[in-house]
């Protein structure tokens, strides 16, 4: 969102920035820094694939919602 505001400034760009920032955040927070926290989600029946797909889907939903504003 911040990059969307800084670099372009319109709402659609903020939506696009979610597409990049959400996976990046997941990568750095869960894959690099706190890898063990994945076990919390594994115990809820959520695999790595499901978690990555849901992050990307949420990014797309944000983009669609913000594009509609």
């Amino acid at each position, binding site marked *: 969102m911040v990059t969307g505001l800084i670099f372009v400034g319109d709402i659609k760009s903020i939506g696009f920035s979610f597409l990049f920032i959400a996976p990046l955040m997941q990568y750095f927070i869960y894959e690099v820094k*706190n890898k*063990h*926290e*994945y*076990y*919390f989600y*594994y*115990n*809820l*029946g*959520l*695999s790595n694939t*499901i978690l990555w797909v849901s992050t990307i889907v949420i990014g797309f939903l944000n983009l669609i919602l913000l594009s509609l504003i």
Partner: protein
Amino acid sequence: MSTLHIDSITKSYDNKKILSDIYLTCKKGEIVGLIGRNGSGKSTLLKIIFGIEKCENKFVQIGDKVINNIASGRTLINYLPQDFFLPNNIKIKALINLFLPKENRSELINNDYIKPLLHKKNQELSGGEKRIVEILLIVHSNAEFILLDEPFNGVSPIIKTYIINYIKKMKSSKGYIITDHDYENVLNLADKIMFLKDGTLKEVMNKKQLVDLGYLSQTNYNMLIEESS
């Protein structure tokens, strides 16, 4: 009564067989202790059973259901890893609500060890407090089988005894497979002891066999016998 069947598990690293055609069963209400030297493959075996570690071959079944991955084992198998796994920045009460079904929450919320921690965030807890929260969460989950990988890591003796007694008290509703470096904890808790060596699993029928298998020295064994008598 439902049973966890594990069969034909084979795993290699760099052409070296770590696990070779492993067969193991665990019934509901039973505690299976898994012991072996460092690097023998205990944690790898638990991860394969849980569904997060790939292997050449495996067959895991609970009742009639074959477990191939995490999603198919949902509500059937839970796994406590060696390292702390609860997300930071979330209060313990919220974690309980996220992790446990409604009907299982109240016992944990009213637990004497958990009550004072409810409004603290996970990162504010000590190592021992984190561990007890994690173990009790897993034990109170709806899963029928629980895999505990070194549950007593960083836990003080009094908490260790509490956890051992707690698992014994709760064992009728679930099956447990437990590993620990401190063999005494496992021997204390388990109904059946399995020894993992050179990729194969053997059932240990008596403590003396641990000396013959090269897991305990004669001195360790004598101390163990003295303590238990």
